[in-house]
């Protein structure tokens, strides 16, 4: 059963071939047996999951089931779960148990899905390799067969690795600069970062508020659509959430792609991309041509400025967002503080990891008197130019396609000493967050036995078109079905 998709498992449950309790136990057993080598979970909620599964079976028996009733999945440990530890990958919140649900969490609960636990992540979602987690690095299931411990990408590395290892069929994730797409690409699963404002951020612990967006991760595009059906929609608790009708994202999966206009941003096929990676992406585009799509080169002239702008805006917002972790009300507090200043400085020095501190320092600096105009304001101007690039591109084409990453999963420790090299992991994904448009990562081949992700970028609120494009591709390819050894 663990190789089946959410859609398939839902049908199995509906047919009565298996109960949710049996299914839940199967996945829990797999986590117990295998996750030692991946470390993809921070918390496994066995008792709660089995209780929820039992409730789900009762609901299904009573004829009150939704697609999700009784289907196991996991939450990235950035989504607050009422009564269940929510750590955000940090020592700062290692002891934090929220007394409330994130809206996303509540939505899955209402849909009857069975949460098996909370997946590992880079601390406060800051990282591209899942090596900055206080709970230890996550290991990519791909490459392990050769004895290599490779990164799963980040920050949603736990969700991606757990799905790739078939420990869960689906998991929530978040994407601030590529944190869904990059790990999905590196782990060979399918992920979607929706339009900014499509999914509520309430209860999703903030990294950079104007960029953070909750999204989906599963093996198939269809499962991503099923997840988005649960997650998308207006939430009065989030002022930045958009009040706009939510379509049934599964309804348009089977639309033919004939006439789909694909744009290839020339800036994303630069020399940063290895020839082997480029070949895989070009092959995928050829498949789309076979499906009736047309292809042209387009330009995102300001894309090269995206990383620089991002590493001002995101740390600036983070420096304020993370001020609340002060040891006063919840979370980590240093032992025996001498006075208020000692409480603050030691709590934060001891509670935050290195990458988080680096970004707080960068952000604090960028917002400081005398620097604000040159950094923050300039970066916001660049951001508007980048948004305009996408607006212009979508006047000519329906979707943009590119690689997700410059290279496949790298070996753990390879980039930890050089933050800038690590930041360049997101060179193809970051502009999307600055613009706020939706984008997917779809498995599209292998280089050296490691998965390659195709990025499909859409216009604002055109998630359905992306899912349709990804689903059609997955009808004629089987990259997303490949299993790590």
């Amino acid at each position, binding site marked *: 059963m663990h190789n089946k998709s959410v859609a398939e498992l839902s049908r199995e449950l509906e047919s009565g071939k298996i109960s949710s309790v049996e299914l839940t136990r199967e996945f829990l057993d797999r986590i117990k047996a295998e996750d030692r080598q991946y470390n993809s979970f921070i918390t496994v909620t066995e008792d709660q999951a089995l209780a929820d599964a039992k409730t789900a079976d009762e609901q299904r028996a009573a004829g009150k089931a939704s697609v999700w009733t009784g289907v196991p999945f996991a939450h990235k440990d950035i989504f607050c779960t009422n009564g269940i530890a929510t750590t955000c990958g940090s020592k700062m919140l290692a002891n*934090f148990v929220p007394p409330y649900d994130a809206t996303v969490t509540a939505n899955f609960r209402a849909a009857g899905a069975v949460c098996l636990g909370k997946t590992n992540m880079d601390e406060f979602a800051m990282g591209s390799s899942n090596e900055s987690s206080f709970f230890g690095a996550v290991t990519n299931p791909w490459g392990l067969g050769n004895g290599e411990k490779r990164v799963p990408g980040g920050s949603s590395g736990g969700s991606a690795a757990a799905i790739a290892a078939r420990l869960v069929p689906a998991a929530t994730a978040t994407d601030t600069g590529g944190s869904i797409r990059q790990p999905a690409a590196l782990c060979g699963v399918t992920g979607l970062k929706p339009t900014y404002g499509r999914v509520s951020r309430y209860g999703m*612990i903030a990294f950079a508020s104007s960029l953070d967006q909750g999204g989906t991760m599963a093996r198939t595009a269809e499962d991503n659509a099923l997840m988005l059906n649960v997650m998308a929609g207006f939430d009065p608790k989030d*002022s930045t959430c958009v009040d706009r009708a939510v379509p049934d994202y599964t309804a348009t999966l089977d639309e033919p792609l004939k006439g789909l206009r694909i744009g290839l941003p020339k800036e994303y096929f630069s020399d940063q991309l290895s020839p082997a990676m480029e070949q895989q992406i070009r092959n995928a585009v050829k498949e789309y041509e076979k499906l009736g799509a047309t292809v042209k080169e387009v330009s995102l002239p300001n894309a090269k400025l995206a990383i620089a702008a991002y590493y001002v805006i995101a740390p600036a917002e983070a420096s304020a967002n993370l001020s609340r972790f002060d040891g006063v009300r919840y979370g980590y507090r240093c032992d025996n503080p001498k006075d208020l200043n000692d409480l603050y400085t030691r709590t934060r020095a001891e509670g935050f990891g290195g990458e988080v501190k680096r970004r707080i320092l960068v952000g604090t600096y960028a917002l400081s008197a005398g620097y604000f105009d040159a950094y923050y304001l300039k970066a916001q101007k660049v951001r508007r130019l980048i948004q305009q690039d996408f607006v212009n591109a979508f006047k000519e084409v329906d979707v943009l396609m590119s690689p997700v990453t410059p290279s496949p999963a790298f070996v753990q420790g390879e980039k930890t000493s050089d933050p800038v090299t690590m930041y360049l992991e997101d060179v193809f994904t970051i502009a999307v967050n600055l613009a706020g448009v939706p984008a997917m990562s779809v498995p599209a081949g292998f280089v050296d036995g490691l998965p390659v992700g195709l990025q499909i970028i859409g216009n604002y609120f055109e998630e359905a078109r992306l899912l349709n494009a990804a689903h059609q591709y997955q009808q004629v390819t089987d990259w997303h079905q490949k299993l790590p050894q």
Partner: protein
Amino acid sequence: MQWDIVIGLEIHVQLATKTKIFSGSSTAFGAEPNTQASAVDLAMPGTLPVPNEQAFRYAVMFGLAVNAEIGRRSVFDRKNYFYPDLPKGYQTTQLDHPIVGPGFVDIDLDDGSSKRVRIHHAHLEEDAGKSLHEDFDGMTGIDLNRAGTPLIEIVTEPDMTSAEEAVAFAKKLHSLVSSIGICDGDMSQGSLRFDVNISLKPKGSDELGTRTETKNLNSFRFMEQAIAHEVERQMDILEDGGRIIQETRLYNGDRDESRSMRSKEEANDYRYFPCPDLLPVVIDDAFIESARDLLPELPDERKARFKEQYGLNDYDARLLSDDARIAAFFEEAVGQGKDAKLAANWVLGEFSARLNAEDKTVLEAPITGSQLGQLVARIADNTVSSSGAKKVFEALWNGDADNADAIIEAQGLKQVSDTGALEQMVDEVLAGMPDQVAQYQEEADPKKQKKMLGGFMGPLMKASKGQGNPKLFNEILVRKLGG
């Protein structure tokens, strides 16, 4: 050397919304600590602010009441600093795009002149919680009930030149925000808090001196004292050839002392930037008009009406119109009779004195406007003398009866105004005082004659058992004696 005093004010006004500016928690004062603090107020991870529409409406009402431009695109910023009673580590406030732009307030001064004080802007922001330094044995307690209470911070231009003007402005503002219903006006609970910026410059100079800010004055008396204290402090320094340091000071009203809190060099770099959790709020014409419809009569409008409608002088009209509750009490009293001037005298005289003596507000007074009005009507129609009326007022205040007529009846305070009966009494008394009558009639000086009338009044009041109408006695006496 002669100095000009330059004063500008910053006023924090708590808005009387039922719930907080970014959460649904109650803003009621006095609850057990931390019982009115939700996950949002506690800045729990992942929680987000949702703006309270009523706070915007109140802010717009304030803007309209001070003749200000309304900011059509209102943007929130984060002001970053660490403090235990600031849960998020930043205050959500407005920097560059406040909801209320430039406006003005006209104040009346005691010499009868009036002065315009310009409002620089007013912005919406959230209040912090409270740090409780007592009762925790060397530790500090944090109460977040107040955290997130909506405030408008009003910033004036440095247009005031004396403590008198500053206090007059502060009182006017207090009356304004109370009377339009956007603030409960309770200064003892911190509903209005004043920061005073003061500098001195050589008389007539165009160049402003270095200023200090004295924070958190929550009574008019302390404000007046603090300004006097700071002006004197700065004057001493300047006259000794010293320099004023730009700094924030705290004034201790009980000891009439102030001390430096922090200097400009020590000031925080607040690293303001637009809050990414809140979108800009667009204020459209319809919203402004709906706010305008909610505005009651403003004190300045009311003052003009009182002068026009009741023929009051400027001074009485101002005293009665500033506070909406006093104005309402006065109008209720006038409603019972025709003599508005007499009603004004009683409201501003006996009634106000009694409130002050017992430290009560109008709402706490044991008598109503209509009760006082009935008494005023009885004075006006000569039913009761003014000395009798004081006894009636006393009895009403003490709750001896619920209306003036009953008290007049019970205490026998009714004046005899039957001229026939009065004339008879006058005749009898004059007949018994032939010497005094002769003296009066021989006196050539009308002033002295007038004085001598008093000599007949005592026996007359005695003869009438205190119930004769003194005015009528007087008339009859003059007629009979003058012959």
